């Protein structure tokens, strides 16, 4: 159980939001999981039940604990109900207009000392907070997929985030059992920025015909000790997702050459060869 329990609002009940709700509830926090789409909320409930049932089967928790954890989560569709929250984590799709709208609403609804966090991987925290009252309590709080499994949370300090709130968010991540790192608002934050050459340079090497896909993957695993090669990893992530991240980092760095996207990747997105999810990417999964 957490050192002290908070009431946490989670906005967006998709894969990320539902995962974050689970992480919070497992640590004893009250959760208000918000989505305007009832079908998405139903799916989130099914996911929470299934995941906690697996915990029971594996002997990690008792039936009673499962029921207690589930009882901590309220499934809601009215944002006004988040007025009671100490902390709100927004996890809607990566669209600035959507996020600005939500944080505008939260600024009106929530207490001025409530911590307002956005789980973004690519949008500027400073821009989301810009022009809103009390921007000092708006921070980035970036989980990695799947949220219940991956330990890292990037705590992102926007230009107007206060140091006190940065520390609060950092401690909250620790209380959730996560490993937080602090990063100043900048394109791609830490991981999505520093990982760019893993994909981009592999694509350049491929495009320059220095080695083929299988060879590059094999070299990065056998010579480099990476768990997955850059191409099998892109197939897993989704080539469209990977390409969009590169484009966003490239644009936000004002076209710094280090982040220049790859034409090979662009053509694959155009052709609909997006990786495992379409059965074909750098490898063929239909065989």
């Amino acid at each position: 159980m957490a050192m002290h329990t908070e009431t946490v609002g989670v906005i967006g009940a998709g894969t990320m939001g539902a995962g974050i709700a689970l992480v919070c509830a497992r640590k004893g926090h009250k959760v208000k999981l918000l989505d305007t789409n009832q079908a998405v909320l139903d799916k989130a409930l099914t996911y929470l039940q299934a995941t906690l049932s697996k915990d029971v089967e594996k002997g990690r928790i008792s039936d009673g604990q499962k029921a207690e954890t589930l009882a901590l989560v309220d499934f809601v569709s009215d944002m006004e109900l988040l007025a009671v929250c100490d902390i709100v984590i927004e996890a809607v799709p990566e669209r600035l207009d959507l996020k600005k709208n939500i944080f505008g609403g939260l600024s009106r609804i929530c207490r001025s000392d409530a911590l307002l966090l956005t789980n973004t991987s690519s949008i500027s925290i400073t821009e989301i907070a810009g022009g809103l009252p009390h921007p000092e309590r708006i921070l980035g709080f970036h989980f990695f997929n799947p949220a219940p499994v991956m330990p890292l949370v990037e705590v992102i300090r926007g230009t107007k985030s206060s140091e006190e709130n940065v520390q609060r968010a950092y401690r909250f991540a620790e209380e959730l059992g996560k490993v937080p790192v602090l990063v100043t608002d900048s394109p791609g934050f830490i991981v999505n920025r520093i990982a760019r050459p893993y994909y981009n340079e592999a694509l350049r090497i491929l495009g320059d015909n220095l080695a083929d896909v299988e060879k590059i993957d094999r070299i990065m695993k056998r010579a480099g000790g990476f768990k997955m090669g850059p191409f099998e990893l892109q197939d897993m992530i989704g080539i469209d997702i990977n390409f969009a991240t590169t484009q966003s980092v490239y644009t936000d760095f004002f076209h710094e050459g280090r982040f220049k996207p790859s034409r090979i990747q662009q053509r694959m997105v155009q052709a609909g060869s997006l990786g495992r999810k379409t059965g074909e990417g750098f490898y063929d999964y239909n065989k």
Partner: protein
Amino acid sequence: MTTTNKAVLLVGDSPLYGELHQLITDRGYRVLSLEEAAVQPEAVSLAIEVNSVHLQAKEELIRKLDQLLVPAVPIVTTSLAITATETASWTKHPGRVCGFGTLAPLAERELIEIAPALQTEEAAVRATESFFQSLGKETERVEDEVGLVFPRILSLIINEAAFTLMEKTATPRDIDTAMKQGTNYPYGPLEWADRIGLDEIYAITRGLQRDLAEERYRTAPLLRKLVLANRVGVRSGQGFYTYDAKGGCGV
């Protein structure tokens, strides 16, 4: 390869030198310095040259090896900072020059990349492959370009981490933690660089920038300055982190 009675000539000042010397000796070869080989050149079955930072020294060494050894003896050279094709162009017998590339520590490398120059003859490539296989390593052939595959990709990851640190976007610890916990890297890029040697990483990014001439390969100023100040990592006691005498991490 049954060359246990044969000698390998090893030259160069890369951080790979010490580790290669140890590994080659452990596998039953005799390792000769340039001075030792000069009095018994016929004993040398293969020569390895591992300069990356000082390209003029590399050129002088390669020319000496080319003069000293009969054309049948392969000259295997690191193509981390310069292509094997350019290195071969310095010789009278370019067909025997073959590139390779890897990074310290060698114990962690299951596989070594081999990059034949445009001029390399098949026999020299085969001899290079057999040699590394006799050291217990797998080999993979790639086309000749600065930094090959793994050293090139890793150097650019480290370079980006150096930019991130230079800007004070995050601390070294947080940068390393993020890459290990957020995307499953075996090491954080900065601690990894300290173990490889920052000079070796710098030689690769500088070589890519020199040969491919793109902003993409611009070396992070912090990385360049650390190398110039001889803060090359664990080896010199200081790099992105500071180390005590036992190689333990202090700051």
